[in-house]
């Protein structure tokens, strides 16, 4: 009798939830459908090499930042400043190319700049136990100001001059496959992304260091009593997040060949989308990459949809509205238990 009552209530609750998800998703599809019909776009335009290639290029900053965010947060340090890492890496990469004339040297300069920011962030958060969210926002704000400022000082404008950029590497044979051939006709940072996604997944799931990162974010005391230095694990993880986000920011800027610093800069919130991407991917690098592809795809689509009758600024909100809908519909991410908490050894 009582179990029946319980299961009835449970079923009702579940139905209500399913129904809500259904409404949300169908509303989204309907809105996208209406948008489509007002433009001349066809499905063939979306399932195409050009579309996939553009999506992959846009994935670089988001996916690398997301991979970095996974390491930091899994170890217990929430790095909300990924946006800042992307901005400073993008600027430093372009400045590096202008100074040295080498695209690869610029790429390294971008990574180095972002890594320095990560070291700073790690010291403030781990050594001095600052609030991680506030410190992360500070990193973003400093980068947001510093990038365009340095550009103005060095080049007389918030936008740098156009420089050389990464050239596409085409893998013969594979690249001529229909549609997915676009995967093998991309710039070096995209190839690097494939390696990084698999590599990060492997490190987190199959190495001792991955276990320690996981334990450090879930129960640092357990890791400490097992004889592993929690502070060191967190430093390495946070610095790694800076390196990865740096690859993303530098790689993105060097596929365009210019740093644009007006408004929200060329990064335009992709560091924050990265946070959503790894949450949606439940801290799994492969999941984070797939959700990144979804957002990057929507951003590509959004650019093409701007040719329709709707105001462009309204169409630009499509990826962000999708983020909200998807988060509401999925909503079962499990955050590390000790994320955001400071740890001091010997807290017996």
């Amino acid at each position, binding site marked *: 009798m009582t179990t029946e009552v319980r299961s009835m209530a449970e079923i009702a609750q579940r139905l209500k939830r399913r129904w809500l998800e259904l409404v949300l998703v169908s509303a989204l599809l309907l809105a996208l459908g209406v948008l489509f019909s007002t433009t001349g776009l066809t499905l063939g335009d979306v399932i195409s090499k050009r579309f996939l290639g553009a999506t992959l290029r846009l994935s670089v900053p988001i996916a690398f930042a997301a991979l970095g965010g996974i390491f930091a947060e899994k170890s217990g340090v929430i790095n909300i400043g990924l946006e800042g890492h992307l901005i400073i890496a993008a600027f430093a990469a372009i400045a590096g190319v202008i100074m040295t004339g080498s695209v690869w040297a610029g790429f390294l300069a971008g990574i180095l700049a972002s890594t320095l920011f990560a070291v700073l962030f790690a010291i403030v958060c781990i050594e001095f136990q600052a609030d991680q969210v506030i410190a992360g926002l500070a990193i973003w704000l400093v980068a947001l100001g510093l990038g365009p400022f340095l550009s103005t000082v060095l080049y007389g404008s918030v936008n740098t001059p156009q420089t050389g950029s990464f050239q596409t590497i085409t893998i013969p044979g594979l690249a001529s496959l229909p549609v997915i051939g676009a995967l093998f006709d991309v710039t070096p940072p995209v190839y690097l992304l494939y390696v990084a996604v698999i590599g990060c997944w492997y490190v987190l799931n*199959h*190495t001792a260091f991955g*276990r320690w990162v996981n334990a450090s974010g*879930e129960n640092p005391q357990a890791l400490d009593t*097992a004889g592993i230095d929690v502070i060191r694990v967190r430093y390495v993880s946070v610095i790694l997040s800076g390196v990865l986000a740096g690859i993303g920011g530098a790689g993105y800027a060097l596929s365009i060949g210019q740093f644009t610093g007006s408004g929200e800069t060329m990064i335009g919130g992709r560091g924050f989308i990265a946070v959503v991407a790894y949450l949606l991917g439940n801290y799994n690098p492969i999941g984070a990459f797939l959700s990144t592809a979804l957002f990057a795809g929507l951003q590509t689509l959004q650019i093409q949809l701007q040719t329709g009758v709707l105001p462009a600024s309204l169409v630009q909100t499509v990826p962000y509205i999708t983020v909200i809908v998807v988060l509401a519909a999925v909503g079962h991410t499990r955050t590390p238990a000790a994320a955001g908490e400071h740890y001091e050894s010997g807290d017996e």
Partner: protein
Amino acid sequence: MTTAVQLDGITKRFPGVLANDDVDLTVEQGTVHALLGENGAGKTTLMNILYGLYEPTDGRIVVDGDERSFESPRAAIDAGIGMIHQHFMLVDPMTVAENVTLGAEPRKWGGLAVDADAAVRDVAALSEQYGLDVDPTAPIETLSVGVQQRTEILKALYRGAEVLILDEPTAVLTPQEVEELLSIFEQLTDQGKTIIFITHKLGEAMAAADDITVLRDGQTIGSIAAADTSREALAEMMVGREVLLEIERPPVERGSTLLTVERVSTPSQRGVPAVSDVSFSAHAGEIFGIAGVDGNGQRELIELLTGLSTPASGSIVFDGEVITHTSRRDRIERGIAYVPEDRHAQGLVMPFDLVENGLLGNQRTSSFTDTGRIDWDACHEHASSIIEEYDVRPPNPSASAESLSGGNQQKFIVGRELARDPALLIATHPTRGVDIGSTEFIHEQLLALREAGVAVILVSSKLDEVRGLSDRMAVMHDGTFVDTVDPDAVTEEELGLLMAGEQPARGEQQ
């Protein structure tokens, strides 16, 4: 027989506190040694010194015949000493094998990868060897507290521990799990391991240990073989005076019916057994006991009585008025006081001081407030009087609740609830985790209430306690009262069967 661990004249001074004062301890290899003492006697400090967490101010540590000094737990682990803390150090989403091998993972491919299969194999073999019966592939969060504890034991064994220190290992276990743990102790000592366990429970020390060392106020009172002593003698060593272990319940005239519960039911939440169709009455001048294995609906039933939740069906009548659906506030005003099961979550606000905690539930009482303003002077006086009357230590109203030991927290809660001058007191596990001195005191208070004509409803998983105090006793199983019995007439065996849910042959109700 060889000596596994010898502590010689250990002294540990913290700023302002002498935690250990010239303590000696000798533990023979292959034995179970109980470190017995009241809360705050210095047992855990002593073991933390042996485990390398604290450095002793003075004294010698000898392990396996060699004098040692451990500057970190790592050093103690390397010397074959493992410690299982009261709060487990486990990573919830990880599996048993991952937790056991954490920080000492078996590697393959030249260290590039963790050999997950080897970890599972090694842990399974260890579990098999010592009869621990733990599934290496199960995530920690899916396991019961007992199995989690065995995972901690595996962790120590995996790191090569020869001496296992367990801090209050039974505090979190059900009676069945305690039985299992004691048999694990046997398996371990049979294979040459040495066990030191910290406890304040006499019965456990007597049942599980070969030797017992008693600490009081940071000093060694004495070491004795468990076979050569008695509960009474140990209690006196622990407390420093004679302790009444048997509860004496003087006859009291039973008064009128105060509370009538008529066929209450409540649906279950998240798989916890609900209350179904429970009826009983409680009288003035009577202690009505509810016994049973934890998690059989006692908590839900008490929440219905205190007004923390309302029943799906049935009625509750108090002093002639129906209160089935009234709020907790209304019931406080009617004189229903409540000593909750979980003193940290429900009884006290831990960071608040005793003045504020003493006010809890009284914030609308006229002696503490005049239309919106709290009279802190009156509150301070109130807290001080509870502290004095119930011998709460330290006697400082400005001390935060979290700075008190469990026994003193509990005495303060009991004092606060009794100060309401209740007509009905509902006490759930009033002596859980409380040392024997305080337990004796709380029992005396409950009996005094009964003599003063208050109705008391007592829920406890300690059979001795509920049998000794109650005038009548219901046994709860799976959300129902299996039977209501006379605690003086019922045998231990009959109770065991009732607690397992077996209906009595005679359907006699009192």
